[in-house]
């Protein structure tokens, strides 16, 4: 079980600190696949990365992360090492292009394992078993990255990053660059791994809400470095309480919706700059429901079991 409380991560830039993650608290239960969605720049990828490795420019400002009862030393790059891969693992956004094109897949995996002090040969049977689970034959280990399709590479990276049964897996935009058919297979692979217990819980970071609607147990929506809403998938999709969530869902064209018949509204305006974010609700400039109280920051509170929202009008909204 993962618990994050009041996590703050800033980016150092020449113009000042960008408050990419500005006080975020949530938890992910064992066996839960939590989807994390929002527009680019909302902090979703920062959150995903912060749980495993802070980049050079990322600065830990405050907050606490506990995984299975132990506090993760996320601010300390060196102290995090024993946790990485073994407790927390990640399938990065550009995993596919990160593969060294001149090495066979199997050899590359052995080298990566060796770097973690593990022996490739002892783990090989388990590796092949798991590849088979995802519909990949052991032949792929003898291939070069260029011989695999994007979806296959993505699945190989998934198998590799979960080989030691980590408690938490972060999947960062793993389906974004794929065709629909491969997308579906990678999505299915994520669920399969959770069901088989290869990973206890998962955070799936993506801007694609439709994919999350298929595989996530709960969905958390972020906006401008803050949490907007978190609820079980059904609730988010069918009865969202935050106006931002509603607008976001309303801007998705589904098969069957035509411009001629129904013009989907977008969301007017742009997210605020996180260099000096506005006080109060950060969505209020774009919000159709904004009223005088929105100059105060709405708390992220529970309005129903497992349904948290940061909006002054959430209560009335959810019922009406």
């Amino acid at each position: 079980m993962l618990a994050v409380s009041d996590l703050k991560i800033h980016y150092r830039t020449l113009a000042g600190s960008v408050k990419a993650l500005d006080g975020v608290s949530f938890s992910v239960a064992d066996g839960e696949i939590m989807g994390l969605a929002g527009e680019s720049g909302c902090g979703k990828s920062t959150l995903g990365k912060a749980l495993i490795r802070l980049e050079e420019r990322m600065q830990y400002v405050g907050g606490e992360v506990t995984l299975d009862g132990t506090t993760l030393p996320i601010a300390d790059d060196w102290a995090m090492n024993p946790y990485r891969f073994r407790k927390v693992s990640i399938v990065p956004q550009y995993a596919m292009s990160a593969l060294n094109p001149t090495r066979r897949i199997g050899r590359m995996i052995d080298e990566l394992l060796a770097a973690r002090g593990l022996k490739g040969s002892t783990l090989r049977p388990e590796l092949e078993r798991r590849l088979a689970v995802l519909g990949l034959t052991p032949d792929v280990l003898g291939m070069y990255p260029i011989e695999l399709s994007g979806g296959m590479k993505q699945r190989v990276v998934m198998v590799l990053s979960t080989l030691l049964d980590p408690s938490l897996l972060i999947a960062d935009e793993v389906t974004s660059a794929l065709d629909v058919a491969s997308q579906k297979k990678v999505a299915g692979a994520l669920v399969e791994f959770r069901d088989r217990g290869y990973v206890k819980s998962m955070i799936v970071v993506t801007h694609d809400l439709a994919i999350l609607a298929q595989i996530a147990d709960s969905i958390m929506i972020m906006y401008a470095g803050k949490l907007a809403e978190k609820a079980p998938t059904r609730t988010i999709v069918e009865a969202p309480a935050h106006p931002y969530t509603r607008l976001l869902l309303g801007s998705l064209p589904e098969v069957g919706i035509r411009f001629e018949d129904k013009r989907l509204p977008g969301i007017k305006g742009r997210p605020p700059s996180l260099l000096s974010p506005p006080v109060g609700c950060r969505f209020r400039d774009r919000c159709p429901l904004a009223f005088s109280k929105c100059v105060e920051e709405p708390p992220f509170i529970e309005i129903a079991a497992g349904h948290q929202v940061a909006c002054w009008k959430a209560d009335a909204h959810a019922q009406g």
Partner: protein
Amino acid sequence: MLKVENVSKVFRSGAFGGKKAKVIHDIDFEVKPGEVVSLIGESGSGKTTVGRMILRLTSVSEGRITFDGEDVSALKGRALKSYYRRVQGVFQDPFSSFNPIFKVGRVFRTIRREFLADLDTATWETRLTGALNAVGLEFAALDKFPHQMSGGQLQRLLIARALVLDIRLLVADEIISMLDASTRIDVLNLLGDLKRQGLSIIFVTHDLALGNYISDRIIILQKGSIVEMGATDRVFGDPQHAYTRSLLNAVPHLHERWSDAELKDLGLVKDTARFGGRLVEHQPDHLVRVYS
């Protein structure tokens, strides 16, 4: 207006073009004025190549592409320029479409120099303002470097670039696949508005939902062949080819969850592409490839 007639494309590689690979097989379709045609397929289906051939960025190996009856491949000099005044393109990656070392306004200066040099400044500025307004951007945006803008803004600037020219056909190659959901719909709606004003659009995409939202007609490409084509509601309402069906099944829906069995069908992706066969009319304005 635009006719693609039995077009094939062979790519040569290796020393002095020794190796050949046929990537487009005998494609034939037409785009009428004010029509949005979607070219849908996965990576490797050749959809981008078709778009590039129409834009003359890639040569045609067999068959021909005509615009208002003129063979596009034969155009040179002045005639080619006049073709580009009527037909323009926008590509997938907005950041790669701008020269990173120049401010974005340079794109418009180039357009004026190349096509509209005879326009006086006042007329030009009115026209530029009109095009920028149509895509919801302001004059000040021109004074920025590409890396200071968002992908959506850049993509809209590129559409504005095409609009300055009063084009009749826009080839939009995956122009929204790199954008956020909320920005996507803005760009899509913009294309819809332009279509209402009579612009024809070839919309190249791998996303069936997006293709469906905007287009009048759909062309499904698999490994360089058209497997199914026709009016959007007919193709999506009554898909006949196995490949079209599998694509439609793989589209995630918000309100309808895949069953567990469906989701965990993780077998190797089968290569179902078959060559040969011919397109037959399943119903009016709905062609499907059948194999004998």
